[in-house]
């Protein structure tokens, strides 16, 4: 018990290093432009509905946004012409970028005329990853101390 307490600074440093390395495994965006594509935005439509999305570009006069839509019975992915189209209540809402466990990342083409406000979220350095890493580090320190 006493020896563990004596090693506390060493354990703390080791833990910090492990966590930093673990966080690094999540892979940073890198310096290449292609690896950094997509900025978080909030889209407000003319009918006052608003949603968070990622603005990835423009195509033929429209905004291209990636939106996470939770899986439900109303959401269906249909493959046609080598592309995965996403239908919600029988209406095509975009193409599937990624089908995940709980949601589908849908790429939508949004006409600018339908948008009343498009705001970009910037300087957002803290995300869920930070919270999880902090919680994990905290829990590990408590666990080590309780040995």
């Amino acid at each position, binding site marked *: 018990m006493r020896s563990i307490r004596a090693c*506390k600074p060493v354990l703390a440093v080791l833990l*910090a290093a492990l966590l930093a390395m673990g966080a690094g495994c999540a892979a940073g965006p890198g310096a290449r*432009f292609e690896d950094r594509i997509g900025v978080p935005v909030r889209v407000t439509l003319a009918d006052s509905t608003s949603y968070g999305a990622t603005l990835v570009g423009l195509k033929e006069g429209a905004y291209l946004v990636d939106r996470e839509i939770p899986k439900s019975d109303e959401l269906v992915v249909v493959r046609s012409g080598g592309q995965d189209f996403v239908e919600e209540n029988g209406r095509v809402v975009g193409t599937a970028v990624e089908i995940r466990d709980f949601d589908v990342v849908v790429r939508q083409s949004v006409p600018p005329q339908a948008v009343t406000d498009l705001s*970009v979220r910037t300087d957002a350095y803290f995300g869920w990853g*930070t919270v999880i890493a*902090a919680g994990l580090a905290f829990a590990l*320190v408590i666990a080590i101390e309780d040995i």
Partner: protein
Amino acid sequence: MKLGSLCGVLALAAVLAIASGCARRIPASELGEEGGDVEIRLTTAAGEQVGGRLVSLSSSDVVVDALYAHGGDVSIEGTPDRRRVVVDGRDVDGQVLAVERTPEGRAQATVRRTFSLNEITSAEIARSRREATLGTLISQVAGPAIGLLLGLLVQG
């Protein structure tokens, strides 16, 4: 859970909530004025490819601080107070904001250009290198560091 641990968790939540307040929401049409740092690469209907910093994105047009490095088809000409950028023998439309040296020693001009949304065939929009790198560093270091410090503080 001990009272100390509970206090630690609450403090952790408070610190993260305060820190997340650093994020700002800027209208896309005011990115340049508000100091937003977003990059864009676009291709026009005429086949021109332009890359630089996104200054404004509205329902009708896109304003870009486009970067042109001297060399190849690009030349930066004129006097210091009346610069112009020439690509493939044609003057680039727009206002030359600055001419600077790149770390490689090449002259690079920043030209503010406005494009109609309809003349853009495709464009890709990305976070700035500064924000992307800083975000990764902070998430790698700040999260574990905050948790670690709070854990050590709680245990006394």
